[in-house]
């Protein structure tokens, strides 16, 4: 401490939170790979269907996250069966003519989810059982009862959500639901309740002795988790447009994997929608990328293998976090995200650039639909030659701007941190490599445009 006191201007402690390092990196790596493998992902329909498929998983991960933050090793294994339970009861009610209006459906789903989680929380608090045991018990009981309620897949979803699952455009009710849910969580993080929750998860005894009403906070966390689970069930129902007693169950493992991939701590105290959404998206992208390889009959086996190994590997990587923390003392996930996003945008442009169409320019010429290009700016694969021409002119500008931004970021990072042993080296190296690679890729792939200028 005497050493520290000689340099009083330097505040003690590191703000570093490198847990998002891995999900962000993995996300962009997978995204780049996915776009390169299948450019069709970056169409309105591609993104739309991605959202439809990924939303139940993302929301299920949120549900897990909310209760996992509360500590005591709460990993709610019953989230999958709970989604299934809401799904099958919803289908049964709606085919019985009840629950027709959207409002009723939403209220019902959220209520059931919250009710289940309330019971869960009460057992954990007052019977003082380990949460994992309670969730196991819930898993078995709900899996059983789901099959009793709806013995085999079938039924029809409420009429109003019949078209939700088509996923033909980016903007769908499901997306709205996802955005609202995420925004709600972000708003929630601004409240004192969230701070209580996080601190309780990190050290329950500290919170208790400091006068935090831990019972109420824990119940609150479970209620939020239940609400998310209800929303996940609606998204799931929209996706399959019917009832399925066993499909929901599979969400348990995937959601837990997504949670771990997203950098949340299963011990509690750490987690957020950003990481959880990234984790879930990563899993979706893994499935997507694997699907592009077309393994034929063994597709599902390969997916299983990949899920399992990625879960284990990402758990093992969390062991490295303290080591990283020692070297990167001031890591800004946001900065890192933006930097990588810029790079991957370049890759996406490259991947979706229809060079043959540009060169041949023989496609039927139509008027440029400004409206459409605004709404679906990334719908590039089938764009008109005019757009292509426009883009061709813009390409060098974009690449130059990209390089400038990246260099600026790099310099900021490099200069701001040189005197301290903080962020810097690792992020800088990653960035530099990716920037150079992206720039190289772009110059390689756009010689014509450069020449045409």
């Amino acid at each position, binding site marked *: *401490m005497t050493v*520290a*006191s000689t340099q*009083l*201007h*330097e*505040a*003690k*402690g*590191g*703000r*570093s*939170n490198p847990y998002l390092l891995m999900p962000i990196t993995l996300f962009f790596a997978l995204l780049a790979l996915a776009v390169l493998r299948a450019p069709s992902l970056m169409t309105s329909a591609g993104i739309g269907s991605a959202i439809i498929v990924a939303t139940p998983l993302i929301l299920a991960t949120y549900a897990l996250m909310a209760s996992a933050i509360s500590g005591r090793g709460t990993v709610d294994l019953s989230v999958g069966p709970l989604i299934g339970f809401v799904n099958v009861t919803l289908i049964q009610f709606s085919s019985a003519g009840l629950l027709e209006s959207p409002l009723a459906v939403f209220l019902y789903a959220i209520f059931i989810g919250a009710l289940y989680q309330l019971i869960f929380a009460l057992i954990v608090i007052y019977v003082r059982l380990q949460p994992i045991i309670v969730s196991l018990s819930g898993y078995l009981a709900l899996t059983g009862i789901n099959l009793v309620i709806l013995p085999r897949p079938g039924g029809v979803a409420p009429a109003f959500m019949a078209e939700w699952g088509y996923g033909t455009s980016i903007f769908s009710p499901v997306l709205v639901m996802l955005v609202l849910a995420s925004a709600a969580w972000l708003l929630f993080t601004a*409240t*004192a*309740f969230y*701070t*209580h929750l*996080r*601190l309780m*998860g*990190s*050290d329950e*005894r*500290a*919170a*208790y*002795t*400091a*006068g*935090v*009403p831990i019972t*109420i*906070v824990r119940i609150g966390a479970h209620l939020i988790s239940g609400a998310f689970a209800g929303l996940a069930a609606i998204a799931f129902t929209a996706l399959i447009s019917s009832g399925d007693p066993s499909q929901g169950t599979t969400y348990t493992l995937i959601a837990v994997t997504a949670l771990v991939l997203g950098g949340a*701590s299963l011990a509690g*105290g*750490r987690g957020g929608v950003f990481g959880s959404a990234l984790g879930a998206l990563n899993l979706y992208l893994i499935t997507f990328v694997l699907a592009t390889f077309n393994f034929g009959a063994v597709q599902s086996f390969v997916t299983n293998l990949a899920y399992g190994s990625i879960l284990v590997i990402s758990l093992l990587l969390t062991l490295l976090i303290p080591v990283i*923390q020692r070297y990167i*003392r001031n890591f800004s996930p946001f900065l890192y995200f933006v930097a990588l996003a810029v790079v991957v945008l370049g890759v996406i442009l490259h991947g979706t650039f229809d060079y043959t169409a540009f060169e041949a320019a023989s496609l039927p010429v139509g008027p440029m639909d400004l409206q459409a290009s605004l709404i679906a700016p990334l719908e590039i694969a089938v764009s008109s030659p005019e757009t292509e021409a426009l883009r061709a002119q813009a390409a060098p500008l974009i690449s130059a701007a990209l390089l400038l931004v990246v260099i600026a970021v790099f310099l900021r990072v490099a200069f701001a941190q040189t005197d301290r042993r903080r962020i810097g080296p690792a992020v800088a190296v990653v960035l530099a490599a990716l920037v150079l690679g992206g720039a190289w890729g772009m110059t390689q792939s756009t010689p014509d445009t450069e020449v045409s200028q």
Partner: protein
Amino acid sequence: MPTAAVLSTSAEPGRDTISVRNVKKYFGPTRALDGASFSARAGEIHAIVGGNGCGKSTLAKVVSGILPVDSGAVTILGETPSTPAESRALGISTVYQEVMVADESSVVDNIYLGADRLFSKTLSQDRKVARAATLMQELSGEAVDPHALVGTLPLGLKQWITIARALLSEPKILILDESSAALDFDSTERLFNKMRALRDGGTTVLIVTHRIAELIRISDRATVLRDGRDVGVLEKHEITEKNLLALMTGVDRSGSHHALAAPQPKTAERGLKARGLVVEPGAKAFDFDLRRGEIVGVAGLDGQGQDAFVRVLAGVQPAEQGVVQVAAQNDEWSMVRSLPEAAAGRISYVSGDRKREGIFASLSIFENMMMPLYREKRRGGILGIIDRLTLGAIFKREADNLLIKFGLKEDRITSLSGGNQQKVLIGRGFAMRPDIIVLNDPARGIDVGAKAELYKHLRSFAEDGRSVVYMSSELEEFLGFATRVIVFRDGAPFDAFDGSRLDPKVVLEAMFGQTNGEGLTAAYGLQPGRAVPQTGSAPTANGVRVLVDVPEDIKAALRAARPIATPTYAMKETTVSRPAELSKPIRIVEFDTSGQKRGGHKSVGSGQ
């Protein structure tokens, strides 16, 4: 002395804010509080003091509303809070012994933990940050980034965060439960200043401590606890070490204990040596020798490296640098780097932290004691069948030796009281038939009677020519028990003292770095036999050798002229009189095979 405890319950300077009447709190068979009472006023620093396991921490928890009492009345500011939230609302802030912070969260969140209402914040985040930054600067004396994750901070700063949390709400009552444990000297001083300022503002500051020097400096009144009962209240002018010790230990018992003589080694033969040892990162390197037949006391303020030192000696944790070697057969030394090596070198380790690294809670008493011998006494080779017959005999022997009181040996160990559990663990250490036993604060939380038996047992163990390394957080334990005492500070030995002339006050000063540390090189220092250069590679061959022959008439004279300050000196009827009062003559006493000519006479003469 109980008479010194002038009771003055009627509140003159301030009204009574805390009133505890005849409170009892039992944990199973353990009586943590057994009818304790005390009261504290507004505008005073009140110390709750007592030895380990006297119930003072339990009392703090009762006052802060964490533990409900079994019987008795607790009134704080006219109410009886039953949860920490209620006591916080009443204006009671507590800093607990254990540093409780949320590692995943920022400094500012940790400081403001519990300050907000359930949904809305009491302060905007910006103002919280600013306040947290100034508060931490003020308290810890260095700038702390309020956004920093607490997990990245050192322990001392974490402790400050918990203190800052308690100070934040301008408490009416502030309870500090051993809160200076993780703080260094300067920080403790800053904390004391803060406490005085609060007191002058009318706050009741309640400190719970077993550190006598600290509480003498800071407290206005002190309530002394012993065995779960209050045994006296001392006013400011009565708070002296003598009065406190008298009350804490109980006069009768401490007297009999102190009258005993510390065992003296019969030879200079060393059982263990350490060379260039560094036990904590950044600490000084030192050498250390352990002779056969001595009890080495190890002391120091919490976290000054003494704990690491005994663990390194026992092979529980590796040394940062340097080597620890134990005497093996054929005059050879074998390394101690790990537990198996320590066991091979016949070193056993007994921890005072029973719950964490001692007992196996759901296993039987028998198993708890005999577990380490399972391997040695197995039958059927690889099948590893436990030889319960042989082990049963050993168990009976150790249990009889240590006077362990138990029902059936198949009963769970948790059915025993703390003291008896500790005896079982010590029995585990003895059952391995060690040459060296290393004890890490073993008397923590056991009663005085059990302690006395433990000392007796260890003493006879040492008198058999084996060695004991005994770390304790209570200096009183070393009186009349330790051959020499080594005080640690900043991760290395700071000073050493002769056990037969031990003055707790001086040792305490050494713990605070107020002595010159010259004891380290004395005959009772780190290497008692180092003074005369040793030539050759074979140290102390041939086992026990009597080198000093004290004539009978001198011994008689010695007994007659026993100095009052050292009542225990030369009580023992051994041919090896190892006089150790003065540093100069003692250096002449050497146990080299050829060093017989000089020796006893001169030193003994100087002792007269």
